[in-house]
């Protein structure tokens, strides 16, 4: 692996950002709208419950969910952009390897993560006067767990896109949201049927959102065990999803990467 090739791919996608209205709007517009809608829904629910925690939990988890979705889109849209641009043949006829492309996606994801987190924190503070960062250092492993979950979903989706191409591109927007109901981001998983609760327990996302609840509700919060479970799962899932992506990339090469056009 060569660093200059990894960095070239990071630059390629970051450089496109300012002039790509579609991508820019997906990074800024949807998180903003989600925070506005669920912030006010939470405020409304708090008026019934006479508590002030629903809004805080909802807003914090919605922000974290944006990290999942944007990390997911970051991977799958990076691939789709190359397919739409008929650029796959150009890229992979250079010395660039698929592992370098994966590393570049990871680095770009971290840069975007910092940007999106800062944007969401600022919006939440501006609209509701609530500083998410006041949750302290526990936020770091929780945010990173959400980020890795998003990457896993993104690599899973991309493993389908790299084989079937743009004709299944809708999956890029669909697959991530399948996990929303069982992630615990928008509501506690206790409201779910038992079978879905079982599914939730196998998802690292649940351990991240549950950790947020503990941080907001407990007097002496310590989500260590939850996070350990979450990280154990995500390491397995991320490894499997990346392995699947590389395998599907090699399968796709058997049919020819040149056929991946929009």
């Amino acid at each position, binding site marked *: 692996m060569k660093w200059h090739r990894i960095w070239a791919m990071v630059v*390629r996608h970051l450089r496109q950002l300012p002039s790509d209205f579609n991508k820019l709007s997906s990074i800024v517009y949807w998180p903003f709208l989600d925070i506005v809608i669920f912030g006010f829904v939470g405020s409304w629910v708090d008026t019934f419950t006479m508590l002030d925690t629903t809004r805080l939990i909802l807003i914090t988890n919605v922000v974290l969910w944006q990290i999942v979705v944007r990390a997911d889109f970051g991977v799958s849209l990076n691939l789709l952009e190359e397919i739409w641009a*008929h650029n796959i043949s*150009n890229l992979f006829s*250079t010395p660039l*390897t698929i592992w370098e492309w994966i590393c570049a996606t990871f680095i770009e994801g971290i840069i975007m993560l910092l940007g999106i987190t800062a944007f969401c924190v600022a919006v939440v503070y501006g609209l509701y006067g609530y500083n998410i960062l006041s949750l302290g250092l526990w936020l770091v492993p929780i945010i990173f767990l959400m980020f890795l979950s998003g990457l896993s979903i993104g690599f899973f989706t991309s493993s389908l896109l790299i084989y079937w191409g743009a004709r299944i591109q809708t999956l890029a927007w669909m697959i991530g949201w399948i996990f929303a109901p069982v992630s615990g981001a928008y509501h506690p998983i206790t409201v779910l049927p038992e079978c879905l609760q079982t599914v939730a327990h196998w998802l690292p996302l649940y351990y991240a959102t549950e950790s947020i609840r503990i941080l907001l509700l407990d007097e002496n919060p310590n989500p260590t065990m939850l996070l350990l479970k979450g990280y154990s799962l995500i390491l397995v899932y991320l490894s499997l999803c990346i392995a699947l992506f590389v395998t599907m990339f090699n399968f796709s090469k058997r*049919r020819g990467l040149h056929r991946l056009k929009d």
Partner: protein
Amino acid sequence: MQLLNVRNLTKQYSENCIAVNNISFSLERGEVLGILGSNGAGKTTTIHMLLDLLTPTSGTITYFGKNFHKNRSESLQKIGFATTYARLPGHMTVYENLDIYGRLYGLNAHQRKTKITELLTMLEVIDLQNRQAGELSAGETTRVILAKAFLADPEIVLLDEPTASLDIDIAQAIREFICHQRDKGVSFLLTSHNMHEMTQVCDRIIVMQNGTILADSTPQQLAGNVSHAFLQLVLDDQQLEASIAYAERTNTNYQTLGPTITFEIDEHAVAQTLINLAQNGITYTQISIKKPTLEDYFLSITQKGKRL
């Protein structure tokens, strides 16, 4: 010195679909090797296997004396590729796009700037460097992608239909650019439908049909395999009738178009035919003799293939 050696390369998609069937060839330093063939002959499939965009079913590819699949990145560092069928990300400018490829090949900032400016100037698209790639015409995109292929001073350049769908003057400029690069020692492997282009640019041509190599020789030798020539005469009406009668009497293939008759004869029998026409009292106002070309050879073998 052989820069590329291909041995028994095969691509089989299914039991009934063999795109490339056990082909072998090599490319020497400074050589321009053309792959000629009709649609579906296996030209592009071969190029894609040579770039690792498509995994071969069997066979070996050796670049610079090393196995390609074990030394993929090292080999591709010295190989440029351009195709008419690819595009570039439309939201970035021409310069930004080429800059990314310069980075992928490991050029530093100064090298990238110098090389991009030099290539865009040579290909007469320097004025487009700040234009978004999505706004370019097909011809402009082809020239920018061609510039991409030469960014890292490659030793081998693979070109897939480099002048397809381009205006005549632009296509000629690109052919001259290729010849200029060849003179600097770059080796080329290119596919094209354009026989004139292949004759003008290639030192050697491989003719492919149905995934196999039918011939591998110089354009002149391939054309020399066709033994017939075309003798074209322009005559008045009376002489035209006499010449038709002569052709039918001597069992010579001919075609007429207005006052013109074209005889298809053995290229060594041109002089004798002219003597015979004179002896039969046939006079003409204009004469032209068309020697066999690469196109005639290609048509002769592909038609033979169809008959088979």
